[in-house]
């Protein structure tokens, strides 16, 4: 008698993704799908996917989805959730999408206490457009639009979105996690689950920021990228729970 210990979650379609080798999007998709399976809400979930590397996520998540304009996912999710308050609505957004062009939308969705869940994938760079500077790029980080490194006097310093949003009363759960290594993955999965549970309990806004690699645009191997995340991103973006209000 054999037992199946590992399988594709029902929350993911059986389609190979377009993500680069060593990119964390695949892992993060899987963790979201696993949580949705575990909470048994796939059939009542509507995903809102962004413009960025995960623009095609509606092809991968096995659930109803809407493709939002760049940065507008929290507004689109607001529209959906207000029509279907009994359904589960989440946004999946990258750093350029959420912390640059869509900064107003995420701040106000959180301020309203919109009962949605946001998965924010922070890889400190614009991936899809070919590696330009993001609002979360590190000072000194070389990108296609910061060829001499991000210059603090001209381009400022990275936005710590989790810390920012944690100041808002409408935000009930905010955590920053990473998925490099099994332990961090387990922590990330637990945080994502909590962020959906906050929505299911109707408490308010919840977000999980996931630090992620972009080996292609960082110009590193998958292994080097994991090390760079650990050594450079984590000190700038400390992991942890920034808000956890249980009503």
């Amino acid at each position: 008698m054999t037992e199946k210990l590992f399988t594709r979650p029902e929350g993911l379609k059986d389609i190979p993704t377009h993500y680069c080798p060593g990119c964390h999007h695949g892992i993060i998709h899987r963790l979201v799908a696993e949580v949705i399976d575990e909470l048994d809400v796939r059939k009542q979930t509507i995903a809102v996917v962004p413009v960025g590397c995960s623009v095609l996520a509606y092809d991968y998540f096995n659930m109803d989805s809407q493709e939002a304009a760049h940065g507008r996912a929290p507004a689109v999710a607001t529209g959906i959730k207000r029509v279907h308050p009994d359904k589960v609505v989440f946004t999946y957004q990258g750093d350029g999408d959420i912390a640059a062009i869509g900064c107003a939308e995420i701040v106000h969705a959180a301020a309203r206490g919109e009962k949605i869940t946001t998965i924010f994938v922070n890889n400190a760079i614009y991936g899809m457009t070919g590696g330009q500077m993001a609002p979360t790029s590190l000072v000194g980080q070389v990108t296609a639009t910061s060829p001499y490194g991000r210059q603090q006097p001209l381009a400022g310093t990275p936005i710590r979105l989790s810390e920012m949003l944690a100041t808002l009363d409408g935000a009930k759960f905010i955590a920053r996690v990473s998925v490099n290594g099994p332990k961090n993955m387990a922590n990330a999965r637990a945080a994502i689950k909590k962020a959906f549970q906050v929505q299911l309990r109707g408490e308010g806004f919840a977000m999980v920021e996931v630090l992620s690699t972009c080996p292609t645009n960082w110009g590193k191997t998958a292994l080097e990228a994991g090390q760079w995340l650990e050594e450079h991103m984590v000190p700038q973006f400390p992991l942890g729970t920034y808000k956890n209000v249980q009503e």
Partner: protein
Amino acid sequence: MSEKLLMKGNEAIGEAAVVAGCRHYFGYPITPQSELIEYMAKRLPKLDGGVFVQAESEVAAINMVYGAAGAGARVMTSSSSPGMSLKQEGISYIAGAELPCVIVNVQRGGPGLGGIQPAQSDYFQATKGGGHGDYHCVVLAPNSVQEMADLTGLGFDLADQYRTPVILLADGALGQMMEPVIFKERTSKPVAKPWATTGVGERAQTNIINSLFLKPEELEKHNEHLQAKYATITEKEIRWEGSMLEDAELVLVAYGITSRIAYSAMEMARAEGMKVGLFRPITLWPFPEKALHTVLSKASAALAVELSTGQMVEDVRLASNGVVPVHFYGRSGGMIMTPNQILDQIRKIFQAKGGKQ
């Protein structure tokens, strides 16, 4: 619900939306449409399932509309000219993803921050697409408070029937003025929306709301599909109204509030013996091109009158296609012409022609 009420145009749109079954409104305050957002703020929370959200911007509001429309709701937003500019990105996505909604523009003068007085200078933006890409919105132009109510109801029906955004193009004068209005019984039935994202439930396929087609062959096909839909709308949904056109030598062409000023000018010209008629487009897109061409073919000249420096006049010239000379008279910036000023233009045209006075 057939009693006669005295209402501001902006409020009449709000009530008409409610009567049409709209329970979701997302907007941002801007003069001169604020009575509408305020009406919805007061009205919707009192209704079963009514949702009012004051968004952080027009950009957010139109994207909330995208989400709600994609989720299957009858949904509306409203704004005025500068705010409509902000909404254009979202309207392009809504057109691309084929989502039904009603968008109200209570126009004011521009460009830029412009002013807060009535204007018709967003005609190009409304009728020619407005955002990026090959698309059109259905554009309805009321000229009374009653028509603001009637066309709001029609707008929701057309939006659902064709899965397309509908713009109600009003102006600050119509929005602010009070007139009697009757909210008529609705006869149309709700349209099923099997494509909406409601959660996959027991459906065999997941529903996806999207305007992305990375393969050029597919995007071209999608564009051809949109154009085929626009052709059907052009064939079936054109609306216009004519006054004294049977023997008209000069045809005034005016929409919205301007059509009422032009109507007065027409009556004054008739009293002076000049054969003047009025052609009033009610759908600005699709523009009643063939109907106007037929009318102009029997006339000697056309005069387009607008609260702009000359926008609709281009469609009048296209409709004329050289069959008659097309003159233009407009005022802008919130200045409104008097019937006498139009009458002066009419006299000039008749004098230049040597036409009878």
